[in-house]
């Protein structure tokens, strides 16, 4: 009988053991396979280098500084999926015959490397007034060399915000800056005007430039911040001749907006703690420390009693 019971227990234990091992395999094996595949991928990567794409964009900011943005990615030939490549160093140059090194930048999670250039930098221009920018990646064990280039003309935008005959008017003056600083007004080109919102730019109209000048009536019903301020932006976006160029200014032409605060002010930030907190904490501390003091008094009495016993 006892032997039968023991046999049964051993049988149950064996079943348990098998289930436990199976559970452990299920937990760990998928990961092992994943890592094994990773390894296989890296081996194949070593055998054949990846051919990446390097796209170069340029933006002339409102403060006259210029940003060169290199976007580094590669496209999987099988899945046709595009992947951003991070942590690679891109070198930026300007010029055609003799290249001027502008510096280096490392790509971020989105594969972007940004090189910022001061507003007073004197860019070399060709006869037509184009500035030639280049971005280069020198390649490594996994990736082939890559380069991207862009040619843009320098542009000067003046943005004036003023009320003319009680009409809020946005005026722009746009000039091309060609070789030897020759300025030529831009003609028969449309320029978009935007207002900055929280997540994007809201287009409010288009100005057709004539002799480099144009105006737009600003709408009266746009919400601004609590002081009514709005940011007005005149912009060319990824223009084939000028790249991205923008000019912005802030003015109180919006409707003052009072935001409803859904959260009550946090007590943590007040000068004095809430009364309920002070009362609760005081009661708790008095209770606890009162007991401590009582126990210590009892111990003192114990010590004093020593003499009596002696």
């Amino acid at each position, binding site marked *: 009988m006892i032997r039968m019971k023991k046999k049964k227990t051993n049988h149950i234990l064996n079943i348990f053991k098998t289930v*436990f091992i199976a559970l452990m395999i299920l937990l760990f094996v998928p990961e092992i396979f994943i890592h094994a595949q990773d390894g296989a991928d890296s081996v194949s990567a070593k055998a054949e280098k990846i051919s990446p794409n390097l796209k170069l964009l340029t933006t002339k900011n409102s403060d006259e500084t210029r940003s060169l943005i290199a976007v580094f990615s590669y496209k999987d030939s099988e899945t046709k999926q595009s992947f951003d490549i991070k942590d690679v160093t891109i070198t930026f140059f300007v010029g055609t015959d003799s290249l001027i090194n502008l510096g280096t930048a490392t790509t971020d*999670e989105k594969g972007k490397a940004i090189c910022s250039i001061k507003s007073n930098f004197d860019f070399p221009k060709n006869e037509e007034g184009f500035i030639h920018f280049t971005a280069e990646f020198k390649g490594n064990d996994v990736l082939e060399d890559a380069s991207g280039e862009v040619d843009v003309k320098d542009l000067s935008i003046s943005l004036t915000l003023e009320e003319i005959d009680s009409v809020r008017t946005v005026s722009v003056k746009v000039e091309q800056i060609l070789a030897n600083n020759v300025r030529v007004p831009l003609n028969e080109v449309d320029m978009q005007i935007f207002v900055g919102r929280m997540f994007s730019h809201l287009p409010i109209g288009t100005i057709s430039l004539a002799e480099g000048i144009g105006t737009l009536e600003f709408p009266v019903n746009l919400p601004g911040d609590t002081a009514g301020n709005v940011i007005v932006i005149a912009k060319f976006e990824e223009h084939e001749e000028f790249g991205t160029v923008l000019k912005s200014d802030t003015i109180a032409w919006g409707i003052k907006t009072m935001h409803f605060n859904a959260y009550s002010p946090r007590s*943590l930030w007040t000068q004095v*703690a809430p009364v309920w907190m002070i009362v609760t904490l005081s009661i708790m501390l008095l209770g*606890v420390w009162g007991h401590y003091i009582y126990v210590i008094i009892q*111990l003192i009495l*114990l010590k004093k009693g020593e003499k009596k*016993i002696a």
Partner: protein
Amino acid sequence: MEYDSSKLMREFAPQIEKTSKSWYLVFATLLAFFLFGIFGLYTQITKGHVVTGMRDNVVWGVYIVNFIFFMGMSYAGALISGILYLFKSSWRGPVIRMAELITIISLFIGPVFILFCIGRLDRLYYLILFPRIQSPITWDVIAISTDLIGCIIFLYLSFIEDFAKLRDYKELQLPKWRKRLYKYLALGYQETPWQYKIISHTKNIMAAMVIAIAIIVYSVLAWIFGVTLQPGWHSTIFGPYFVIAAVYSGTGMLIVVMWIFRKVYKLEEYITEKHFVNVGVLLLILAAFFGYFTFSDYLTKWYGSIKMDKVLIDKLFTSEYYYMFIASNYLGVLVPIIVVGIKKFRTITNITIAGLITVVSLWFNRYLIVVPTLETPYFPIQDVRSEWLSYSVTWVEMSLILAGISVFCMLFMLASKFVPIISISEMEKHTGETRGLMRD
């Protein structure tokens, strides 16, 4: 088995009188680890926090993990010893002192790890000069200092009767200053009914106090996380979850400590398999509770599908945290349940292994609460170096972890040379009784 005072004194006197070469060797090794930690700390103070893995995104690392871990063990020790004493468990005799020592030693070590995190230690006294009781950090400072004092009083109360026995045991071969010290600390205790009443009464009060304080203090620590708007932290369940996790890890540590002292001081007669099974059953119950709380916490976060909560959970299941997550929340729960739940596996060695797995798992659990959350903020810092976004432990932090563990072991070793590691007075009071929770 009957235990009388003289037999117990004869048994435990050599533990206090004599120190073996191997004791010195182990102590010297631990001291070397401690000094290595001091060197790490010197490097951190002279070169700044840049030598740690902490950066703008992950501002807390293993120091906070260790702080939570040691504080947890401390509260567990307080709860276990308080409950065992208050409910007059018949088997508490050989266990209660170890639980008390875990409490007090962990409570000395834990808060020190907070200091390692602070960039401007020179401003530490501002906490006292300009306290804001609205701040959970201030609650923590008040709570920990209150807890520390309470635990010291409780520990001292439980030592008085043994100090008196050490004072009165004439055969004890110790230097005169040690005997004078025992005499002084015994407060003239002669076991008169009046004195016995005072000690019993005050011990009952303090046992109740340490239980209540342990729950409150560890809840306060949990609220520091719970009141913070971070993925994975802003949870109402964190208070009880932390308390359960603390008692769970402390119970695991108690089993490990029991096993070590049983082996080292050959206490097989006093710490029997029944004691391991009883503490093991406590471990099993806590494992079930801990598993339940963990599942509830992750289930509600996963189902709620708040974007960053989901990102955090995905990270735990797919990134380098995968094995840590499995070890913490699967092995850490299942192993104690299986080992203690199935009678065949219920041996001293297996229960000790389960206890050790619990301790390691719960350390991982705290790491998973602190680090992945800080790596997944609602509003990530933009345009910073990618290496600042994640955390990895440096040798300086490792050296200080080692130092913390070494100090824990060293203080235990020193305590065992100062008082019997098993409470003689408790053993005397409950000589071989088999009632209550005692198992067959």
